[in-house]
């Protein structure tokens, strides 16, 4: 079984919840009830953060949300033609070929470190490392940015792809149904 459906998002914050419900209904109708019950929260967190990311960072009027449902995985892809993922001193996409294979620390506090791994000049994957919580001081040093962390913890993989041919950005999130 493989199903796909696309949804247009107008990048407005008030549209997040109605679209989230629409997408979750599509998933619920096409996934067994037991699997849906286990994964619905993961999908909801991913949708909220992908759509919030579009509102905050894309700088364009619309994004496309594409949902693929297979036997073992749900893939959620957000596509837009807005601003590419920004890696500070690494420059714009496409990245220089010498960066391929590098593990770049993009966020670090006392609880988490998030890395971007340069898979190719046009793609990144992401990983998170957790540190134990053992003191109040760690709370005072906590960062206040959680979007990427929520995507990583809610899913099995998070990838970013920049397509040179049309300048489009793609965030691919996989949620395993296993």
């Amino acid at each position, binding site marked *: 079984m493989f199903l796909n459906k696309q949804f247009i998002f107008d990048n407005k914050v008030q549209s*997040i919840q109605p679209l989230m419900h629409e997408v979750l209904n599509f998933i619920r109708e096409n996934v067994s009830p037991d699997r849906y019950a286990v994964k619905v929260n993961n999908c909801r967190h991913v949708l909220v953060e992908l759509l*919030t990311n579009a509102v905050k960072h894309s700088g364009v009027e619309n994004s496309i949300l594409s949902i693929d449902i297979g036997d073992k995985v749900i893939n959620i892809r957000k596509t837009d033609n807005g601003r590419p993922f920004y890696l500070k001193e690494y420059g714009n996409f496409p990245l220089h070929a010498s960066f391929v294979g590098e593990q770049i620390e993009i966020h670090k506090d006392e609880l988490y470190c998030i890395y971007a791994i340069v898979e190719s000049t046009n793609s990144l994957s992401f990983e998170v490392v957790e540190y134990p*919580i053992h*003191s109040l001081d760690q709370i005072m040093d906590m960062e*206040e940015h959680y979007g990427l*962390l*929520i995507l990583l913890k809610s899913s099995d993989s998070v990838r970013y792809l920049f397509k040179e041919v049309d300048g489009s950005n793609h965030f691919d999130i996989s949620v395993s149904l296993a």
Partner: protein
Amino acid sequence: MIEITGFSNYHIATIMIAEANMEQADVFKHELITEMDSGKKQILISFENVQYIDSSFLGALVASLKYALTIGGDLAVYGLNENILNLFEMIRMDKVFKVFKTVPASYEDGWIAG
């Protein structure tokens, strides 16, 4: 955004919106800090009306907790629906905020989950 009421020896701040998102985050933090500055230092935040929370609002919540700790105050949360509780557990916010399932009778011994 929040309604604050006195209860026992602390205060309850009830979030009055269903969507705790990026549009509401700054107002929420400002109102909560204003209440703390007026002397209400131990505040239980009620999420009973909230359907979902995004990363921006979560950031405002953490910023408010950090502010509370700098002034000798304390924050805890209550009334999380299953979806929000799942998010808290997933990113270990339940180790940062004390999560109450029922309204505690009184404030005692600090609320930091640790």
